[in-house]
């Protein structure tokens, strides 16, 4: 039984019936691709090709084609890695944590959000791979495999190794979670399918789903437990990513506040990215009735909260640096704000701390355009946060003799573009051939929420 309090506004508007849901969602999948979609696809494929070229050069010539040097050993590579992982978090968070909290409004967005998670994590995983000097051996030496080197094992003390486990686990579980959710909808498409190919393809994808009550019972249990597992998992992933820095000895990295601060930041940027994508999908596929302003407002509120947490974390860092009395630590933070990279620091501050505060104003937080703009600003800010942490800490650490600057090259940018190319290509494919909204779940709340408009 659906118990939805009557004060709440309906999650689905215009009195959609269960059948309408099936039609509206499947229409995208069954219809011919629109011109807009084709254009978008062509664009992202273009970017992807450029990216592939840059990666080719990177692998052929060596890491030297990037702008790194003896002092700054990581820059755009790990910045992008952390940024993408962070973005990924929103998906799991929406589908898992909001599921545990029985937040029904998640249902319209969790499918796309999870898809985003998966593509984002793939993009993220590109960088730990490519940043290795010897990818061709690194990709399997980093795993605890028996080997011909006298069974030389990996180093379980290394946060980088923890990353390997965290990221791969995170990716696998998200993928499974997402796919479980897709199975019933594939079945719907399969049963509506008119032409042979889609019958075959969706038939295969739907694993022979028949919607039997017994299966639904197990299905719900599985979903619930996966959510229960994914919740600590998603928190652990960015915690472990933050260990890469927190367990080091470099001033500006060696900070115990990192785990919570990174997780908050991840959710922050994740929700921003979800908003960016949702607003586009919503417009392109005319899903205004499923993704309502109410959804957007709720997400904006989460952005205010996480944004403020991040802001507090920044201030805390400064305070701790001053309070610690550690000279190098103090300098690291003075240098962030006033050194050669001051512009990066202040970009970060404006985008992440100031811009989300605008959402306190209801007009802005319920305004689609404003939301869209701010969501992008936040993502820019979060990229700079990682850049500031990584580069400005490294470029001036303990011994002034090694202090240096980092200047990105064409290939730094190119490989970053590659991930964008991949991400959007994948996302557009998903949006075209997969049900972008979880039909089964939506249907389960149609009755309760449509009652109000009867």
């Amino acid at each position, binding site marked *: 039984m659906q118990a939805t309090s009557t004060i709440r506004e309906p999650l689905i508007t215009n009195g959609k019936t269960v059948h309408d849901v099936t039609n509206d969602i499947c229409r995208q999948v069954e219809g011919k691709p629109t011109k807009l979609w084709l254009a978008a696809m062509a664009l992202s494929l273009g970017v992807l090709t450029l990216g592939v070229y840059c990666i080719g050069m990177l692998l052929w010539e060596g890491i030297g084609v990037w702008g790194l040097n003896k002092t700054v050993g990581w820059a755009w590579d790990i910045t992008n890695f952390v940024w993408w992982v962070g973005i990924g978090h929103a998906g799991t968070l929406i589908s898992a944590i909001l599921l545990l909290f029985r937040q029904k409004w998640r249902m319209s967005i969790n499918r796309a959000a999870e898809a985003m998670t998966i593509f984002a994590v793939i993009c993220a995983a590109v960088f730990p791979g490519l940043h290795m000097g010897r990818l061709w051996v690194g990709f399997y030496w980093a795993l605890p495999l028996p080997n011909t080197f006298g069974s030389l094992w990996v180093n379980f003390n290394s946060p980088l190794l923890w990353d390997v486990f965290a990221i791969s686990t995170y990716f696998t579980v998200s993928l499974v979670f997402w796919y479980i959710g897709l199975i019933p909808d594939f079945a719907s498409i399969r049963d509506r399918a008119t032409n042979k190919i889609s019958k075959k393809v969706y038939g295969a994808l739907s694993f022979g789903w028949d919607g039997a009550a017994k299966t639904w019972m197990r299905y719900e249990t599985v979903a619930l437990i996966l959510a229960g597992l994914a919740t600590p998992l998603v928190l652990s992933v960015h915690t472990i990513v933050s260990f890469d820095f927190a367990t*080091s000895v470099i001033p500006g990295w060696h900070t115990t506040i990192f785990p919570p601060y990174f997780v908050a930041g991840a959710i922050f940027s994740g929700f921003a990215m979800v908003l960016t994508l949702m607003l586009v999908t919503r417009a392109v596929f005319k899903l205004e009735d499923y993704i309502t302003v109410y959804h957007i407002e709720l997400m904006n509120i989460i952005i205010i909260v996480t944004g403020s947490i991040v802001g507090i974390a920044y201030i805390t860092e400064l305070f701790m640096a001053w309070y610690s009395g550690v000279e190098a630590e103090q300098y690291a933070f003075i240098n962030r704000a006033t050194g050669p990279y001051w512009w990066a620091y202040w970009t970060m501050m404006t985008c992440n701390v100031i811009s989300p505060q605008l959402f306190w104003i209801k007009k802005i937080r319920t305004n689609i355009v404003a939301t869209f703009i701010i969501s992008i600003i936040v993502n820019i800010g979060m990229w700079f946060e990682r850049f500031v942490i990584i580069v400005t800490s490294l470029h001036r650490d303990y011994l002034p003799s090694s202090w240096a600057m980092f200047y990105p090259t064409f290939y730094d940018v190119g490989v970053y573009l590659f991930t964008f190319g991949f991400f959007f290509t994948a996302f557009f494919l998903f949006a075209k051939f997969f049900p972008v909204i979880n039909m089964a779940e939506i249907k389960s709340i149609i009755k309760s929420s449509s009652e109000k408009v009867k």
Partner: protein
Amino acid sequence: MKENKKIYWKGLEQLSKDPEFVKYANKEFAEYLPLPNEMPEEGSSRRDFLKMMGFGIAAASLAACEAPIRKAIPYVNKPVDVDPGIPNYYASTYVQGGDYCSILVKTREGRPIKVEGNTLSKVSGGGVNAQVEASILSLYDNERLRGPLAAGESTSWENLDYEITSKLRTISVNGGGIRILSNTILSPGTEAAIEDFKAKYPTAEHLTYDPYSSAGMLKANETNFGKRALPSFDFSKAKSIVSFGADFLGTWINPIAFTKQYSKNRKLGDDKKTMSRHFQFEANLSLTGANADYRTPLKPSQEGVAVVALYNLIAGKSGASKISGGSIELAHLSEAADSLWSNRGASLVVSGSNDPAVQEVINGINQLLGNYGRTIDLAKHTNFRKGDDSSIDQLIADLALGRVAGVIFYNTNPVYNHPSGAKLAEALGKASLSISTSDRNDETASLCGYVAPDHHYLESWNDYEPVKGSYSLSQPAIRPIFDTRQTQESLLNWSGNNVEYFDYLKDRWENNMYPGGLDFQKFWDTCLHDGIWNAPDQDSGEAPAFGGNLGNAAAAIAKNYKAESEGIDLVLYQKAGIGDGSQANNPWLQEMPDPITKATWDNYLTVSQSFANDQGFTSFEGKTNKAKVTVGDHSFEIPLVIQPGQAPGTVGIALGYGRTKAGKVANALGVDVYPLVKKVNDTAAYFVSGDVKIEILSEKYQVAQTQTHQTYMGRTFVVQESILPEYQKNPSAGRVKPKIATWQDESHKVAPGSLSLWKGHRYENHHWGMVVDLNSCTGCSACHIACQAENNIPVVGRAEVINRRDMHWIRIDRYYSSVGDPKDKSISGLKKLEQAADNPEVTFQPMMCQHCNNAPCETVCPVAATTHSTEGLNQMAYNRCIGTRYCANNCPYKVRRFNWFKYHDNDQFGENSSMNSDLGKMVLNPDVTVRSRGVMEKCSFCVQRLQQGKLVAKKENRRPTDEDVQVACAKACPADALVFGDMNDPESKISKMLKIQDLDDPKDASKVDKRILEPRAYHVLEEVGVKPNVVYLTKIRNKETNA
């Protein structure tokens, strides 16, 4: 049938039952083989493994070099003394122009791969410098001529000799002059050969000149003491040293020996609480000036006045009559006078000036101070820098007038490195016979009719007499690689004497040096083995009679120098790496950061901060502008570098750059400023005063510097320093001992090292460590090149240095004192601290992997490619590394180096000649892997040498001593600032220096810790708690007050 058994004897010995034979009868090989049965039984397996490996590498590296070695014969019969995998050392002598160093050459499977100092030598005292270390690579320089040239075409020695001798004959018959032009010749043998040549061709004369001349001193000594020679100095005896622009630790006359002596008197310890006090008056901040206790900027156009002023001050104290002139206000000049006077007899005044007048006054000062016979020995004079500055102009005139028809350039390149080079070049056309013996077709050789390439010094026999009575020999360490011939042999051959120079040399020694006594062969072998021979001591010590009239000198000075000179003085100086440019094609030297500017691959115009301010010119991270410099009718463009300590009103440019025919590496690097050298008092003056115009252009330029941040930001956890009076009161003066607050300890403060989650791992057998004495290190950078040669470190080229990707495992951090207050760490204060002072105090801090016991790099490597050895070494497994660079990021000392590209067998890195040509590869050390692309590398404490040393000791069933285990940098250091050893061995030098006590307190968190009782000892970044195995000794300056 009667059976008959034939007996086959292995030889007559068997028949005659020769005892020698019987002894080895059951052996497979009669001669000695280093096989296990020759050695103590235990643990021979690993030694065998090492031998196999050694042989494997040897075979591989032999296979790697086909072209140069024309007869690469597999060891079917083992050559005497050549055991694959075991290095052989041969004593020899490095001589380049007038520079001298007695050396040991390390050869592996017949290839010289490393040069080290010969401790037996009194002259160079076992020290080396960067140029000596790098000379090994010049042996394998691809630009070397493969054989003789006639008119630019390669020819055979027979033809060459035939043509040359016939031409020589015709010339001398027609009474045409013949000139042999050389740099200073230290070799009696060579001089004899030249004499023979002159005897054969009476019209022949021998002229010498030096690219960087000391003719002024020669003249001065001639006038004052009637002896045209440079004296030997002894800086170790000098308690007070005053130098007017003499860079005696870097480039002046015999820097290696001077550094040895100088550093002896800069060391401090319980038994020695005093050190020399060093005043430097100079324009450019030189290596020597950087080590001075008091440094005063001084325009070269004022130097004469300053010298006179000092003379008068001393004269005032001694009651001698003053000389005219010398009215100048100069900081620290009177202190210098006091210090000199109170240490008379144990003091030393030197000047880099090439003006005889100035040098006469300097002689006068030393005379007044009674330094002759004590710190200066003219009786035991040296043979350095005997060049005459007028010789070449004379030659040019003679050529022009047709008085000279034949010229032989013996290993000289005057067309490049003499101011009148251009004139000589055109005059040379007039000569009917011109021969160069240069090893490459350089600026001069390419203009000569014939090139008869000389051997590299490592391929040749020779003898030297750098200092009167101290001889040294050089012997070939490898068969001549190319079809070259030793010039002495050529000269003898052309004078119709077809003797081998070796026999010629040996005969001369038998007749001239051999003191009698034991038979000559033994004598000869000993000399050859030692590399040196000291003639029985003759007269020495007593002060020579001082003559000459300083009045004339004073007059000459008054004419040429002014106390208040207007306009800009341009100083032409030499860099410690490139020197006069003769080794310019050596990529190691080109990429060696200049000790002061830390710049590579370039020369540039050093300007003072005040000049930059006036011109409104700023520079950040090596990004600078070009300037247009106009001197008289010469004009060129050159990048600017703001140089703290540069005397206001002066600018400096290094000689030795702008080569055009030195080879791929050196050509078109920097600007050639030899043409700017003018003459004052008819000796070359290495500065131009007056008509120097500088115009800053808008054109941007990036100077490739390995260090761009100048100061240490008042960070006492990096550099800890104090002054002598403080030190004498409290030996631990300047030490900063960080404490970390804890909850358990009642004072709530403990040493950072004592806080640890872990018990740590005890090093049962050895515990390697190193001491770096900041007081002794002069920053000369010999260790740089020694390390590069020992560990196959690639050269990355100018562009990559600009990208801050230099690969050196050891670097010398150079810090200036800053304008700000070291205590003020406010935002504005920090901005001030970033600016170097106008006339800064300099600290050199050698920095290499600290081999931390709690190494942060090890923890973070995901594949355990870098781990800790049971002897305290932080070790890299290259072939396990996947190149995440996490270790480098997490290294607080930033000493790890990443292979960004493939530096070997890659045309893009042609300048990395030691890894990109078969010839160059011969220099590689077979004991050290050439790292592949994408892996991390860093200082290994020369682990291959440690293993070698341990094996040697093990063969003799004993613990390795300091002699067995010496890392390349410590071995090379001429100042003994680096001391390496086993901290578990109470007998080792390092244990004694640091007064190490083992603390075996079970309650103590980490058992690896040693208690270091030396009060000056400190760890860089102690509070990070990584527990390095490299210990630094505080820098103590001999000053009265701080500031």
